[in-house]
């Protein structure tokens, strides 16, 4: 059967509620299959805690396929742990070694207040989408889908950006707590497409300014790209910045005509 990882020490952040004082709690795990995922390790630990009559550790998770973006966790200080391009739910114990001490914390960012234990509130990401992360196209009025040919490289580049799962790892990894990779990915996805042109600059302006209400500023560390489970390139930030800059005169021009 599968190989075992033994003698693990988990140092896990516990916090009762948003206003409570948190602390690290240590748990010892004698052995776990290398085939188990990191979240299955937490499942097993939680089963043990319940058996001991203690509160289970609260952590966000859902699809466990790396696509819903619900799971989070700073593992040894890295957002989604040590494996490149991998969300926590897809991280397997074979990435760790026997005898390791593993520190598990919630996302670290001022914009993401802690709810309980390892769970945070990522609501501000939705607030950014609400102001411009869409193409206005009410149901019913769309022309035939093949009326707008989109060159394959453009469609591919838009898709590269659209892969963002909205997990917030980019924010958690950023020393400034900036959400530029998240916002840039959505701006790039929509602004590259022909359908997105009508609202291109209004979108960039609204989304960037909403982002700045909640999040820190980008200073091009590139930590976000390294932490992104979808390996989204920081090129999207450059495109967003260019469109934001242009919006400052393009939007005025459009407005002055009306």
């Amino acid at each position, binding site marked *: *059967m*599968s190989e075992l990882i033994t003698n693990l020490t988990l140092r896990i952040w516990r916090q009762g509620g948003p206003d409570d004082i948190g602390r690290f709690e240590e748990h010892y795990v004698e052995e776990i*299959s290398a085939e*188990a995922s990191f979240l*299955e390790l937490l*499942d*097993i630990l*939680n*089963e043990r*805690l*319940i*058996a001991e*009559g203690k*509160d*289970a550790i*609260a952590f*966000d998770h*859902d*699809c*466990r*396929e*790396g*696509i*819903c*973006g619900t799971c989070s966790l700073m593992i040894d200080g890295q957002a989604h742990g040590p*494996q490149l*391009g991998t969300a926590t739910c*897809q991280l*397997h114990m*074979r990435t760790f070694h026997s005898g390791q001490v593993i520190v598990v914390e919630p996302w670290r960012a001022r914009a993401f207040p802690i*709810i*309980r234990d390892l769970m945070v509130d990522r*609501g501000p990401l*939705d607030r950014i*989408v*609400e102001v411009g*992360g*869409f*193409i206005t*196209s*009410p*149901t*019913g*009025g*769309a*022309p035939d*889908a*093949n009326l707008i*040919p*989109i060159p*394959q490289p453009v*469609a591919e580049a838009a*898709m590269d950006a*659209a*892969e963002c*799962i*909205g997990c917030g790892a980019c924010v958690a990894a950023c020393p400034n707590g900036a959400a530029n990779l998240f916002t840039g990915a959505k701006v790039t*996805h929509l602004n590259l*497409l022909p*359908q997105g042109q009508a609202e291109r600059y209004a979108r960039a302006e609204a989304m960037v300014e909403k982002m700045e209400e909640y999040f820190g500023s980008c200073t091009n560390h590139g930590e976000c790209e390294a932490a992104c489970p979808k390996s989204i390139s920081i090129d999207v930030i450059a495109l967003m910045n260019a469109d934001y800059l242009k919006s400052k005169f393009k939007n005025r021009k459009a407005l002055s005509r009306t």
Partner: protein
Amino acid sequence: MMTAGTTTPDAKIPDGALADKWETYKSDARLVNPANKRKFKILVVGTGLAGASAIATLAELGYQVEAFTFHDSPRRAHSIAAQGGINAAKNYRGDGDSVHRLFYDTIKGGDFRARESNVHRLAEVSVDIIDQCVAQGVPFAREYGGLLDNRSFGGAQVSRTFYARGQTGQQLLLGAYQQMERQVGLGNVKLWNRVELVDTVVVEDRCAGIVTRDLLTGEVRSHAGHAVVLATGGYGNVFFLSTNAMACNVTAAWRAHRRGAWFANPCYTQIHPTCIPQSDEFQSKLTLMSESLRNDGRVWVPSQVDDVRPPADIPEAERDYYLERLYPSFGNLAPRDISSRAAKRAVDSGRGVGPNRNGVYLDFADAVGRLGLDTVWSRYSNLFEMYERITAEDPRDVPMRIYPASHYTMGGLWVDYELATTIPGLYCAGEANFSDHGANRLGASALMQGLADGYFVLPYTISSYLAPMLNQPIPGTDHPEFVKAEGEARERFGRYLQTGGTRSPDHFHRELGKIVWDHCGMERTVQGLEKALSDIPALYEEFNKDLRVTGPSDRINQTLEKAGRVDDFFQLAMLMCRDALERNESCGGHFRAEYQTEDGEALRDDEQFAHVAAWEWTGDPLQATRNVEELVYESVHFQTRSYK
């Protein structure tokens, strides 16, 4: 045991020729004046494809909409995990596709157990879905000339599936989510996140609203509205191990069922043939590998029993490409139920592969030889990478290992042509209803149905219900029925916390799942189902006595959430087994070992069972009343489904 139903539900199918019914319906539907729409409040529970598309469209029309999701963000609904694609009868390939052909394939794929009129409407609106999604900026795959690309999927002989890499569900859901968030930003939708439905409320035979529990604070609260839409997904997690997300559950549909909504065909569950085999006992979740892989992958096992050589050492002559052998015309693209059973038989015959001998190979070597590694990689890179992350094996070097797993549930709340349940004012959309897939769903049809219901069906049918209610008062949340339902919900969650037993909700869920999988999974027998029907109530009794839920009641408590969901799974599981026991035939995902042909194919009984079983709550799932909706086929003729 059999409780014969006396009532035949009225499916409200419009008159006229099949192809004209939807047009006729829309022409006759009652409308609500744009200025009056804001006088109506619609509550939509669930923000997956069906929910998000309904929320966006209803809000664009001008209704007051309140949206409920138990996730932190509506974008996390499990539609996001659909990989392969979405069907539409666009005939962009010029390969003979048409609305009629998509309709026919869906009826046939569903083993002649779906309602003709609903399925035809689905095929009709499929073309509008693609237009709508492209307008929203969904980045579907393109040809070099810039036009949309297609791929093939199981159960069809045309290429009608649109896709966005292996993340079609994600991109379609984000499209709908963005339209919905736009309405949230405009103030037309009130969004309740991290809130779970715990009951529906019926006043004077109409759905008056819902009761929710705030997952962060434990607050139980009522919401009143003119109409309620449940778009809360399927119940595949009744098996514990499934490809569903961890939080997927039957609670919303089940609580509505307990208030009078009939539950149709619960035994129709789909076991998806291409999942990564279970690696260990403690595993919490199975991972799907998109069916689209079967476009280029070849399924095989060793011809010899107990052949444990590495795949590369097994010569071509000693491999059994069993799908190509058994079903030459569809080959590796045979429909899901058929492919799943074939895999089960291969493994049961002692020819399973992998460390636990619990899988079959899905091999890309031929495709790489034919198309080159680059082409194969560009089609499936994200799936190959996902597989490698989970198994530490690279499918470019060794064949993938796959095995069937619970994936989708065709059964669900009974709805009529208007997607209305048997409780007036309560609608059900997407996987949560039973309507379009019969006994088996074809690949790439779930996304199509979810979006069809939300974008193009509900907005028309709801207005017919609302129009006569204009300026009529509706019961407020202070109505005694709301107060009573709130009290019951508080009592229920209090009880889970106070049971003070020794075993966790997960423990019971795992045990329940094992019983359901063994006796009501890929193959069912009278003996097995009867055993399940005695084992499940016994385990449920233990659950009620020996449950242990730790943690607080007034803060987030995932153990407590789980307890409520497992409770409802127990009751559903009993109904599911009863439904399977009463359906004395094999059809689609429901395979009763007693009813099979000599070659082991499903043997339907169209004389006795060409009907929908719509179960009515009586206070005990073991005593539910079985009502029957006869399926009348005007356009298609019964055929033995053959993919040979």
